[in-house]
């Protein structure tokens, strides 16, 4: 029952570590395969079903630069699990080192208020919320690219940019309801 801390360990040289948290453990595998293909920097990918992470590996675990919560919108459990995991992160992570990635957002089976719930959660934590098309190879590679862009900044590999700076630009906001009658 330990809380994950962002600065408790030293960073590696030209190394970035990303932690993918997904309850269903479907999308994280294909993402991880694509992420480690990156040649510019060494990318370590750690996978987890939920937080907290087990105590046993704590010594060998590298410093985690970015925590990504993957939420499958078709399942309520996926959202609840991510929400429950949040409290095992140190507050320091919420300064730009956490992001949410949502899949199946355009699915007809998704109740609209669930997406709103995720949005509100991400907005309240001032984290970016990314959408991903996990069904197509293009979608996966695009999601990978976007995660890498954030990861590089979060790991301090991009000069003149910090995680907090980027997350300040990309943090989620709750969009207005376009269906409101006031909208013309």
């Amino acid at each position, binding site marked *: 029952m330990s809380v994950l801390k962002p600065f408790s360990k030293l960073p590696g040289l030209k190394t970035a570590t990303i932690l993918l948290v997904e309850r269903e453990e479907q999308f994280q595998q294909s993402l991880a395969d694509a992420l480690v293909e990156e040649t510019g920097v060494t990318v370590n990918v750690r996978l987890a079903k939920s937080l907290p992470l087990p105590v046993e590996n704590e010594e060998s675990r590298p410093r985690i630069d970015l925590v990504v919560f993957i939420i499958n919108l078709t399942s309520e459990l996926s959202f609840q699990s991510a929400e429950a995991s949040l409290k095992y992160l140190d507050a320091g992570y919420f300064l730009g080192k956490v992001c949410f990635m949502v899949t199946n*957002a*355009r*699915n*007809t*089976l998704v109740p609209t208020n669930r*997406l709103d719930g995720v949005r509100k959660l991400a907005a309240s934590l001032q984290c*970016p*919320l*990314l*959408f*991903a*098309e996990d*069904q*197509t190879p*293009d*979608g996966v590679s*695009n*999601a990978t*690219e*976007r995660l890498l*862009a*954030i990861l590089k*900044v979060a790991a301090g590999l*991009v*000069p*003149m*940019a910090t995680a907090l700076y*980027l997350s300040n*630009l*990309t*943090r*989620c*906001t709750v*969009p*207005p309801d*376009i*269906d*409101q*009658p006031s*909208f013309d």
Partner: protein
Amino acid sequence: MAAKLSLSGPSDSDTSSPSDQSVSGRSVNRSLRIAEKERRKNEAEDPFVLALKYFSDVEPGTPVNGNDQLERNLVCVEKVAYSKGLHPEAISIMLEFAMSLRMGSSPCVRVLKCLIPSSVVPQEAVVRAVVWLGIGKIPISTQVLFIKWVLTVFDMIDAKDQLRAIYGFIFSFVTEENLVCDDLGILVKMRVFRVRKLLELQSKVGRQPFLMHLLSLYKVFCPELVTLSIPSPMKNAFRNHNSPWKSALLAVQKRNGSQVSSSSLSLTAKDKTNSRKRKHCHLEVPALNSAVNKQAQTDSCSSRKVVPLVQIHSFAQLLENMHRIELPAQMGSLLGSSLTLQFLDCVQDESALLRLNSWLGYALHEEFLFCNDAGSFQNSEEALQFLEKLLSTLHFRQEGFSSIEVFLYKFLNAWDGSLLRPQILGLMSNIPVVTSSQIGQFLFEPLMQLFFTSSLFFKCGLMECLNNMLLKWLTWHSVYALEDDLDISLNSHTSINITLSGFKDSVMELVHFVGRLATVGLQLEGCHSLLLSFILDFYETVCDMFLKYGLPLVVMPPPGVFYPALFAADPVSVDRLAYIMYRYKVNLTSAKRQEKLKEQAFHISRQTFHEFNHYVVVMVNCLWNSKMFHQGMGVQLGEEVLLKSNVPQYSNSFDLIHHPAFLSYAVDFHQKCWPGRKDMDLNSIKHSKPWRWYLEYLFTQGYDGLKQFVQSNISWQPIAGDGGSDDLATQQR
């Protein structure tokens, strides 16, 4: 084959009671029968044909329970239906069997569920079935199922004139059964009394989603009748109403896609529309067909003086018949040809545009925001083609549809940034002017999140898209601007009226937004020259807003764009920056002149002039005077720091000779100018004569922007003997 025969003699069977079907079937000419015999010989053993024969001949009151023959035949028909679909005669036979309740209501539902047409549905069969509805023995759930079936296959019904005659009858089901589906609005013709009845009904049962949906459809058709405010045209109350058949239909059509067209050859006399429709193949733009069928056309042309759009083949014809053109049954078909779009453009009737808008909004939402599990990527080819067609329509019309706008605002909030990127960005650049109060929420927030987390190519794409958007807005402005009251009526059809100051605010918001994106984007991407090039594209539009488009607004680029362009390592960027600054100068001077000329002319703020002068001074000092780090320049560094850097003659390092972008030209010039010299002294170019040659050499390399900038900003007389150069940055104020 009785039903086939009854098909060929439709008019009498329609009016007579349904039970004399077999009688009317016998009155048929002999030759047809002989040909039929031939065919039947071959198919005599076909169990499907036998099954159909069974269903057409079975006696009323035959028991259902334990009837193996029925079971066997039904299974056979189902198998064919789900694999190949049923041909028109089979549809007639099975529908007749089911609706007549000859064997009770239990097989009825089963038959209805497997009625999947392979090509078209004969209108007669539907009309007869509706007649059976009136008998009143059919359970309500089955009636509902039948109506849903009709709606699903509505596009495949070969003619609709007789169906129209009984719309009122169908409409009565709304009140009796609370059965409304979204397409009923298209089915049921607009009538004032119907709307009243609906409103009445609504006050009785409250705001039911399906009623609201139908009313919203009516509102689209006939806005003056429905005054109620309806939340959104697209809250789909009946998203899956036709699901029992939709997937099966899709599968059947996919499987014999080519077959359909070949079998339709025999039906060409009837209709061409059995190709494929949006309903079944989702995003196909429907073929143009009129609401009246072909046979009736000759009559209607003479009596009602209506010309279906499908008969118009040339622009001259269009002009001739402009006043009596009948809109097609499906508005989506208008997207197909330029002729119909021309018609749409000149037609005074708003309803045509509203209907098309409604159809578009529905199609876009259904296919891109509410996907089925696998649908999204199976149909990506279709989606691509549909969007391409939509884009070409937009280019043709030079005007957007509001439904696309609403769709995009929603889609951007769930977009991953790569799905159909070129098409989505294309649609986005066609968005009409958004008021400055809304533009931030609807457009900038989602775009900002996408921009900063996406790849370089997305950033470039978005820059291009925003540039196109600005170009469109400015073009609209220059076309629609009204001189007298400074009012702009943009978008003649949807009649969005924006005041000039409102429009200026929107443009200003957009330019500032791009400035923010560009500044941080260049920073994150390490001043990538590709991104810089797209950003400079945008500012090439911005700097000419006053002269080219008559918009009295001048916005300077932020330092985050100016300095990366000035210090860029590629000469093209510096040249383009010089061109942009030159155009700013031309715009500002002419604005100044106009301001003096007319008292009431607009006012450009001191701040803008100040910024412009500052930039020009920096550029001239940097490129020309070698006074890079002087007091009052943009870049200020302490003397000690500069000395510590060990750069010799640091103040020279960004002049036209030593600038990283032009160094290679200087070296090349030096070699050409003094071919014999062993030691290279670039500073010798600075002398008056070679400096002039060097400039001319640079200008012949195609750096016109630089040339214009130098000629307009620097009054420069080469004075012999003077090593430096005279300069004067012309000051605007």
